[in-house]
């Protein structure tokens, strides 16, 4: 199962959980499962992108995962762009 790590700033939305093992073929399904468990995370996820096994993806939905994949949620570089408001 892939493991997804939550930055400490997000753990208030995950009941303190900082990592989670999830069976998912791609990032899209992994994030769907994360949101199913922690729906309040949605407000934070829109400002994040995803790193899989060291590579940071701008459009990560269809990046395949393996049983040993490490997934990190990484803040997007705003640089003046208006973040989506919920």
């Amino acid at each position: 199962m892939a493991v997804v790590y939550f930055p400490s700033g997000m753990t208030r939305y995950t009941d303190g959980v900082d990592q989670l093992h999830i069976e998912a073929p791609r990032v899209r399904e992994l994030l769907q499962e994360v949101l199913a468990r922690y729906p309040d995370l949605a407000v934070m996820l829109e400002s994040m992108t995803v790193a899989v096994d060291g590579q940071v993806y701008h459009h990560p939905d269809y990046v395949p995962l393996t049983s040993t994949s490490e997934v990190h949620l990484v803040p997007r570089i705003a640089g003046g762009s208006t973040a989506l408001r919920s």
Partner: protein
Amino acid sequence: MSARTFTAIGTRPVRHDGLDKVTGRANFGADITVPGMIFGAVLRSPHAHARLVSIDTTAAEAMAGVKAVLTRDDIPETFAKVVMGEAGTIGLHDMGDNALARTKVLYQGHAVAAVAATSLDIAQRAADRIKVVYEVLPAACTLDQALAPNAPILHEGLRTKGKATSDADGPTNVAMRIEMRRGDIDQGFGEADIIVEDEFRTPMVHQGYIEPHACVARYGEDGQVVIWTSTQGHFMVRDSCAGILGLDPAKIKVVATEIGGGFGGKISVYLEPLAAALSRKAHRPVKMVMTRGEVFRASGPTSGTTIRMKIGAKRDGTLVAASTTMYYEAGAYPGSPAGGGAMCCFASYRIPNFSIEAYDVVVNRPRVAAYRAPGAPAAAFATESVVDEIARRLGMDPLELRLKNAVTEGDRAPYGPTYGPIGLREVIETARRHPHWQAPLGPNQGRGVACGFWFNAGMASSAIVILHGDGSAAVVTGNPDIGGTRAAQALMVSEELGIPVDRIRPSVADTDSIGYADVTGGSRVCYATGMAVIQAAQDVRDQLRQRAATIWGVDLSQVGWENGQAVALDGAPAQTPLTLAELADKMASTGGPVVGRATVSPPMAGPGFAVNICDLEVDKETGCSRVVRYTAIQDVGKAIHPSFVEGQMQGGAAQGIGWALNEEYVYASDGTLQNASFLDYRMPVASDLPPIETVLVEVANPLHPYGVRGVGEVPIVPPLGAVANALRDATGVRFTELPLSPPRVLARLSKD
């Protein structure tokens, strides 16, 4: 080092657009003229914070020559979304509100109305006749004011994303809180033999691009819109204007003009939706060009910051713990680069225990835009100052301390992922060997060093390579060329196909004529768009192999490609190789024109690191500092055109030195900007600076076929710290607030 041997890559041909640029023939935004064109002007708020009670345009509309007047009533509030480079999918609401205020003005210079008239003079005079009734509100123009209890609130609906506690659900100016932690911070500091802590402040500064924002928009009777504009991303302009104006993007074509600098400040729209809306009302093309004052007041700046930084080390120099709290001004709307600062501040060092908190804070100042490595320079200023102070107190060589703690492949970045091949150690070792590091200093001189880190983006790009019948070629992409990328792309085609670089014509196509491209930003064009160019050239090569197979009457599998010509592979009937020129000459009879194409959307390029060495001389009677020697050393992956890479490093160093020594937005207590001109906003000019020496270190990026990393942003990250550390060395005084301008330095030296 990259193992591949290159022929064209790494050479320094004259850039294809060079002569037009140096002779003034190149067409920039303000050079565009179309038949029937009229001129637009913007009425801007004199107040930092006020409610718009009423806007009366009667007198303006009555003036002879006025063709259209635009107010909030002409542009509906939008909740559309657009892809905005590294920021991902973003809402256009705030960008639209920034282009033309709806209910409140949020900074001095905020657009309130616009006029189009037969001359610019008439347009400006008509704008002045628009009667606006403001209800002036208390303003929060600084971080301290915005964060104070009972602070004036810019956006009543704003709530903090990622807040630490749930007991603060009321209106706030804090748009976001970012937190990253690792290890046990208390235990880490408990193990430290030395702890250095200080608070650092950097001012709001502007990118300072020489060319102001400028565009022409023509809204046709059939609803077809053409926009010519100076931008870092014309697809972004198309999609943003469509969203803000409620138009069908299919009816908008955007043509990117030559661009006189952007540095991140031209990845948003300001004038374009106004010009298009004015043209729709006036039934004439409308040209709009910002004055320099408007550029300063209403576009671009990057955040002022306040950063509390604390780092602990063992006696041998090993860093064991670090904590920081960072506040970034967002300007009028959420979206400061606080996240970039948070991710970058400790990215150069292996620190087992750390805590990072970063806050995105709205203030009554212009909405910030990206500026080269957004968020990182201010963060590095704080980190590198404290690391320097630790080295001093331990009596260690500052480069040795940095090398001891430098991250390398396999280390985990503070933002989570593990680093692949990176070149920080190679860069530091190169700095230690450089003659500059051992050179003697003169009287009143000091030397400082600093490291810098930046990510380097990937994102979406498209490319076409067109083979002509005479064996020459064209390469077409959708990325405005800011740093010499057209020449670099021609070199890539030359490398793949063997065509001399001066027989390859590179160009930037409009939004109708090439596939989608994300903005020219994030140091991504040579990497990502370059990847598309290489693949498009390889597509041409493979098509030519097929043409050779047709001519020889053999299967494609029996044709190879070597040294710019098709060759028969072992086992195939012997054939005289066919050169590219010979195959090009036979295109019509072998299947028609040959056009290669490719699209890509790669991940981030892999980080780049740099070390800068700065020698500063201080006049202790005036407080004036002068950089007397400066060396920039950077891991660039692979330099395609080394002159342009060196230019990026020199430009970043110059901008960073200006940020460190003189640049700042100066505000009066009422929130009005006092230095909105190049006369009063002191950017460095050539006579202020010594030649910037550059050293290119090449640690190949495995994600790119040539090893390319981004190079455009890393160079501005180290200079703030390097300059401040040099001043510390020269004076014995640690300065923690920028700019290090003569009055500030003199006051501090007099005090001490």
